[in-house]
């Protein structure tokens, strides 16, 4: 496991099978008998003419991502000692995903629930919420985790979907390398190098839920060694209906533009410079103090980021990376109003100090400054804060038995403005007895550091309570124990199993009474944050990839999550335990089918079952549901694609999550929807 971007994660993984009720044994037998025969049939039919023309024009990154029919030596399975999945551009495109949260539905074990037109709850291994604060998310090496509430403002994040190279997801802790808040997972969204996005790409479409969207990108070259692209996107997304069918007034419009430049001045150096800017209007309905009546609002969001990265390779075992970025986000609403500036500097170096040792270490500095406006609903003990984060990490991968047994040990060390010094050590063991079996195990410690709101917020909530931040809030701690196994018993079939047991301590709770660090300032009943909750979670994810024939792939997955929490002595919190236990599904099943047909046709389907969610009253529960997405696409010419996508097809509408106290709609529902799209490259 290596840090993102430069040495991002490994290739892709295999997904689980547990959909027995769907496929009878007869059918399985039939397929096993038929599959090899089919393969011979197709391999004899050369498709060289068309595709080798395409291949001649592809650059090296595109070739790397090209799916092939296998004639030569068979496949290797992943050797990463973590529960990792990589979602590729092809999979994102073929799923019909219109944004990053939808694309994350492709990851085995991810829990993705749409709350309303523009808001999502995304987590893995439990603790899901609109601001799921134990999942760290980065885009091209830039953190998009907000230190305000914790979690990600998904409504403004994500690149142009066509420019994503891959999304790498680690379920479980990644704190040893990525640091604080990488507790239950790390997501790295990685865009393509500019060399892979040459020429024009224009795509546009519209439908019943994604009302209208348009994307344009142009990529060019200056000389042999410098490639660049510029892009612009626009989306207009409808709101979700309320249970009675009326509008929830949560629609969403966003425009975004940006660039990326990749320069290779020498064979050993790679310089990337990239930036994005966005602006949009998001409608939302909030509960506004002091009357706590649902109040429609238009949030204005704006943001800007620029990033530079220099990678130098001394050799294939030694390199360094220096990266700096600046990020500004602005979000104005009737309940809060925040401009925030962040500057981040990061250095990392990988080398081989001794035979059998691969060492990687790094240093980081981040400064973030916000300025919070006080509203009648949310105000702040401190209107503006500047936080410094200093960090360092070191990790050694030791080949105990060459190519068979590897041990990884390391730790992150951080100093943050809220809790001071934190350390996040981890150790992983990888055993690969043969190329067909990978076993791994890990023990790691991770922390979720307090957010700005945990410390300073004064939040007036219905029915008449005020939650105060606690300046003495401590970090939430976790020790995770993980085991995993991957195998490929036959060429057509591979399995990936991951098990975990997480031991949590000092989880955030909400207690009666005034905050120890803040005077009571409103007429409402005071509550405050504390760390009086602990507990455990455990679970498993089983996934498989079944190459039924060389034109058909099936990827089934089953994920089970169990969470048992309790409050600590002295706690008066009666809601945090049931809400954290209830807000993540115990069982999830997905089945994805990808089919390639002649003459440029592809047919893709995804089925998913999500168990019921229990929310603390008055928020309504969410029933279990099973639904499907499907995509039909035709490529009449190699540079033109026409697709039709149906999403959430099984019900007219269904709920996926209930709101927290900020949002006025107790529940909105995701409608069945259809959109069409045309993509043209020239």
């Amino acid at each position: 496991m290596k840090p993102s971007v430069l040495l991002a994660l490994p290739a892709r993984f295999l997904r689980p099978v547990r959909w027995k009720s769907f496929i009878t044994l007869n059918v399985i037998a039939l397929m096993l008998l038929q599959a090899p025969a089919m393969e011979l049939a197709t391999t004899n039919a050369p498709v060289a003419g068309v595709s080798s023309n395409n291949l001649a024009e592809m650059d090296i990154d595109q070739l790397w991502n090209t799916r092939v029919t296998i004639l030569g030596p068979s496949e290797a399975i992943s050797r990463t000692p973590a529960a990792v999945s990589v979602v590729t551009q092809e999979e994102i495109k073929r799923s019909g995903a219109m944004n990053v949260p939808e694309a994350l539905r492709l990851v085995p074990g991810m829990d993705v629930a749409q709350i309303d037109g523009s808001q999502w709850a995304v987590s893995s291994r439990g603790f899901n919420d609109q601001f799921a604060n134990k999942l760290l998310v980065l885009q091209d090496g830039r953190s998009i985790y907000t230190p305000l509430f914790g979690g990600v403002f998904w409504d403004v994040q994500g690149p142009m979907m066509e420019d994503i190279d891959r999304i790498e997801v680690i379920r479980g802790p990644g704190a040893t390398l990525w640091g604080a808040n990488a507790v239950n997972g790390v997501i790295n969204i990685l865009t393509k190098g500019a060399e892979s996005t040459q020429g024009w790409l224009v795509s546009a479409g519209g439908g019943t839920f994604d009302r209208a969207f348009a994307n344009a990108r142009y990529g060019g070259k200056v000389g042999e060694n410098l490639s660049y692209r510029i892009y612009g996107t626009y989306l207009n997304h409808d709101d979700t209906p309320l249970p009675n069918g009326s509008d929830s007034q949560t629609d969403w419009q966003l425009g975004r533009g940006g660039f990326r430049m990749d320069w290779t001045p020498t064979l050993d150096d790679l310089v990337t410079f990239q930036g994005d800017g966005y602006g949009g209007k998001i409608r939302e309905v909030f509960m506004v103090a002091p009357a706590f009546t649902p109040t429609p609002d238009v949030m204005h969001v704006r943001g800007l980021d620029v990033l530079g990265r220099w990678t130098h390779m001394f050799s294939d075992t030694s390199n360094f990376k220096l990266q700096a970025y600046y990020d500004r986000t602005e979000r104005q609403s009737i309940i809060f109003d925040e401009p925030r500036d962040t500057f981040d500097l990061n250095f990392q170096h990988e080398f081989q100090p001794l035979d059998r040792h691969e060492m990687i270490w790094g240093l980081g500095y981040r400064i973030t400054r916000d300025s919070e406006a006080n509203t009648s609903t949310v105000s702040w003990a401190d209107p503006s804060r500047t936080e410094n984060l200093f960090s360092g990490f070191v990790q050694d991968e030791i080949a105990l038995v060459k190519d068979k047994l590897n041990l990884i040990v390391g730790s992150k060390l951080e100093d943050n403005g809220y809790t001071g010094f934190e350390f996040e050590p981890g150790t992983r063991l990888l055993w690969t007895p043969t190329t067909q079996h990978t076993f791994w195990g890990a023990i790691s410690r991770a922390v979720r550091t307090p957010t700005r709101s945990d410390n300073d917020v004064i939040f007036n909530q219905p029915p008449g309570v005020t939650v105060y931040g606690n300046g003495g809030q401590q970090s939430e701690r976790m020790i995770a124990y993980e085991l995993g196994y991957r195998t490929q018993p036959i060429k057509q079939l591979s399995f990936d199993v991951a098990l975990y047991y997480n031991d949590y301590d000092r989880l955030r709770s909400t207690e009666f009474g005034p905050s120890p660090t803040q005077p009571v300032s409103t007429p409402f009943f005071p509550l405050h944050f504390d760390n009086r909750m602990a507990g455990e979670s455990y679970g498993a994810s089983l996934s498989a990839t079944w190459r039924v024939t060389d034109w058909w792939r099936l990827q089934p997955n089953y994920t089970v999550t169990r969470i048992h929490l309790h409050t600590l002595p002295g706690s008066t919190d009666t809601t945090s335990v049931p809400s954290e236990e209830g807000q993540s599904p115990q069982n999830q099943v997905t089945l994805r089918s990808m089919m390639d047909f002649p003459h440029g046709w592809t047919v893709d389907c995804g089925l998913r079952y999500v168990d019921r969610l229990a929310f603390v009253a008055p928020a309504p529960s969410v029933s279990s549901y099973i639904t499907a997405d499907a995509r039909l696409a035709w490529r009449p010419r190699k540079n033109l694609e026409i697709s039709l996508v149906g999403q959430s097809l099984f019900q007219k509408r269904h709920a996926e999550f209930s709101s927290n106290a900020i949002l006025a709609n107790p529940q909105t529902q995701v409608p069945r929807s259809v959109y069409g799209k045309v993509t043209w490259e020239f």
Partner: protein
Amino acid sequence: MNAVVQRCRRVALSVAAGLVLGLAGGAPAQDRPTDYQVKAAFLEKFGKFIEWPNNAFATPGSPLVIGVFGENPFHGALENLAARDTINGHPVEVRELKALPDLKGCHIVFVASTAKAEQRDVLDAIRRSPILTVGDTDDFCDNGGMVQFIVQNDQVHFQIRNEAARAAGLKISSKLLILAKRAGQ
């Protein structure tokens, strides 16, 4: 719950129907390239990311020679790609190699998996020569090869042993090395 079971049944039926139809309808030939077509494309493009010593080319216009040792698995794909391309001003020439003396004059050598028995001899014969060695057997790099193709998740990737390349006087671009880092982990 009953509704779920019913739905499962319905889905099971349609999946089964799809299977039967798909199988009965015969194998559709899709537009996906074969692994060897992609390997040929890589092989042909690798030259753009390698620096050879000055004396490796007689003149700036002399050809870059890609040799295929053993039975040529590319069925003309490599030759087609080579015929239409130049690499840093060099035309690209593909040769089929039968014996060790044929290795002389090559800039890139691909050792086919059918020549696995001779793999070690080939690698030993050109260990210190400025020739990029590429193969797709699983012990290619362990035996001193520089670039080894591996197929993972239906994609062709490669890993690189850069010490071997450096020892032979070749310089490989960071672009390739970074990509190779993602292989096979």
